[in-house]
């Protein structure tokens, strides 16, 4: 290395300050964005806070979880939400029993077997189903169940309309998870001589099962909150009814509506408490679903 040349230190040219206009616009935009965030988040948090505040003390009473509203007038304190909780859970369970196999197999078809226009059509239609308002799904089941077949409005009919709403959610998330399973896994399986169905059933599905369960739980959370199908197909009942195929069955959203707008304080309390129960169930499902996704299976 030469020792002679000492380059004269070149002073870097001073960086010109930003034009004021740009700085000002940046500040304004920053303030607006912060403001937008605050304006949007405050009511959302406020909702949860309101429901919590008005509803929590009834939930602490063990009777809430074990009794129904039989013989309870709006002015009377007492009774519980067991009939509604049971109804919501039962209808969701029946819906899941029907919707999950359908949805998972549809997703399997779309990912593993489908090629070409038919698969694209099915995929497009699943997307459309995602956007169908719950009241339209309920009207369809009404037209089918009541108008065409002349049957009574029962809990099972509600479950059917919930099936329409749950299928797209589960199809989409199952599809995503199946696509995430690396192809190398499938190819290794085929190379070992495993038939295709066994590859899917014993290798691909178990790998993706975490995300699939998440999708199912998110779907359940969605349908448990749906009120429109209950309005059209599931009239309220104050007593416990464990039969999905006959009689009116209560559910949390209809219990809320039942106590809605009444001037008696016990009724108001029950309304908020039912709302809190519903939110709790939905949130627990959501959080558990996400936790399952995080701790298992294929990562993105």
């Amino acid at each position, binding site marked *: 290395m030469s020792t002679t040349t000492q380059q004269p230190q070149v002073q870097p040219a001073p960086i010109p300050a930003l034009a004021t206009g740009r700085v000002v616009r940046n500040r304004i935009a920053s303030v607006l964005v912060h403001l*937008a965030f605050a304006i949007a988040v405050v009511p959302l948090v406020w909702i949860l806070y309101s429901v919590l505040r008005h509803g929590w003390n009834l939930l602490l009473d063990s009777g809430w979880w074990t009794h129904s509203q039989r013989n309870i007038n709006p002015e009377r304190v007492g009774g519980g939400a067991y009939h509604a909780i049971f109804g919501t859970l039962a209808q969701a369970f029946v819906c899941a029993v029907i919707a999950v196999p359908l949805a998972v197999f549809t997703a399997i078809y779309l990912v593993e077997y489908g090629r070409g226009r038919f698969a694209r059509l099915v995929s497009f239609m699943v997307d459309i*189903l995602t956007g169908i308002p719950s009241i*339209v799904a309920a009207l369809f089941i009404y037209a089918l169940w009541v108008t065409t077949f002349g049957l009574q409005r029962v809990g099972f009919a509600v479950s059917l309309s919930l099936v329409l709403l749950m299928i797209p959610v589960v199809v989409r998330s199952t599809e995503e998870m199946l696509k995430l399973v690396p192809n190398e896994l499938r190819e290794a399986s085929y190379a070992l001589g495993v038939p295709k169905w066994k590859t*899917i059933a014993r290798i691909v599905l178990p790998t993706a099962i975490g995300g699939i369960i998440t999708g199912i739980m998110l779907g359940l959370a969605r349908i448990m909150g749906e009120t429109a199908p209950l309005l059209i197909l599931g009239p309220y009942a104050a007593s416990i009814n464990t039969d999905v195929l006959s009689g009116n069955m209560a559910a949390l959203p209809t219990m809320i509506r039942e106590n809605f707008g009444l001037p008696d304080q016990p009724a108001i309390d029950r309304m908020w408490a039912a709302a809190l129960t519903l939110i709790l169930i939905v949130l627990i499902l959501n959080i558990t679903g996400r936790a399952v996704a995080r701790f298992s299976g294929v990562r993105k």
Partner: protein
Amino acid sequence: MAAVTDQFAAPDVPVRKTPMGTFDLVFRNASLAAALFVLVLLAGIMVSMVVGGWPAFREFGLGFLTSSVWDTQNEQYGAWPAIVGTLSTALIALVVGVPLSLGIAVFLTQLAPPWFKQPVSTAIELLAAVPSIIYGMWGLFVFVPLFAAYVQIPLSNLVEGMPVVGTILYSRSPSGLGILTAGIILAFMIIPFIASITRDMLDQIPSVLRESAYGIGATTWEVVRHVLVPQAGVSIIGAVMLGLGRALGETIAVSLIIGTTNGAFSWSLFSGGETFASKIANNAQEFDTPTKAGAFIAAGLVLFVLTFVVNAIARIVIERRKAFSE
């Protein structure tokens, strides 16, 4: 030749006779059947709505959509107020909700520190899961009284007598209910939805683009406006349309807050009104005989077509964007 093949021939491997075993066929057909069933379901919805609603359209023709008279006694059905109500609440929801959603998304992706971003994003996604009846309850019991007291009454007193603004913002009996309030509650319902999707879109933009922009001296706002938004732009439109689809179909919260209408059309934002969904919901009690349900099914058909179109456009827009950037 024989020596070579002998060397590589495996001793006892059974040769598969058929390329696809029998159960393979069963499994494949089961999946196919499931996919077909989903298609059939959607087709069934379309067919049943058309069949159920057709008598109403056949009897009133396009008048079903333009007439304002809805009289169950005299079998006169006109859905014009429902159309106005549906479109105006959805429009208000978009006007209020989209800027706020974009604000949240931009805030979370660009301005928030990482320790803040993760929990808040999860929180917003959880908020999207809150059932709409809860929004309706909160709207009715908490928001509406405050709105009436702090916004509606002062505004009414202010604009009384003014020419144009006077009609739009005036309310004769300020109860806090009405189209504007319903639109605002709708906005709160679609904000978590649009914000989550937009945040995902913004996150997916390669950071190379952002860093290059910062590297040549752009301010944060300029990066957002000139780099991020154009890049994610079309997908944002898709997300907005999905939110619009949800706003159009929202039933419970709207029916609780939109108030009543006596059929007379009014320009005021604070007047009551109805949307297709709320109309159907409010009359659901009468659905025990199929005869009365006919016109409501027709209303449901209109709603279905509306949401179908909006969702189709949204998906096409998003798909084209995805294909373009891959």
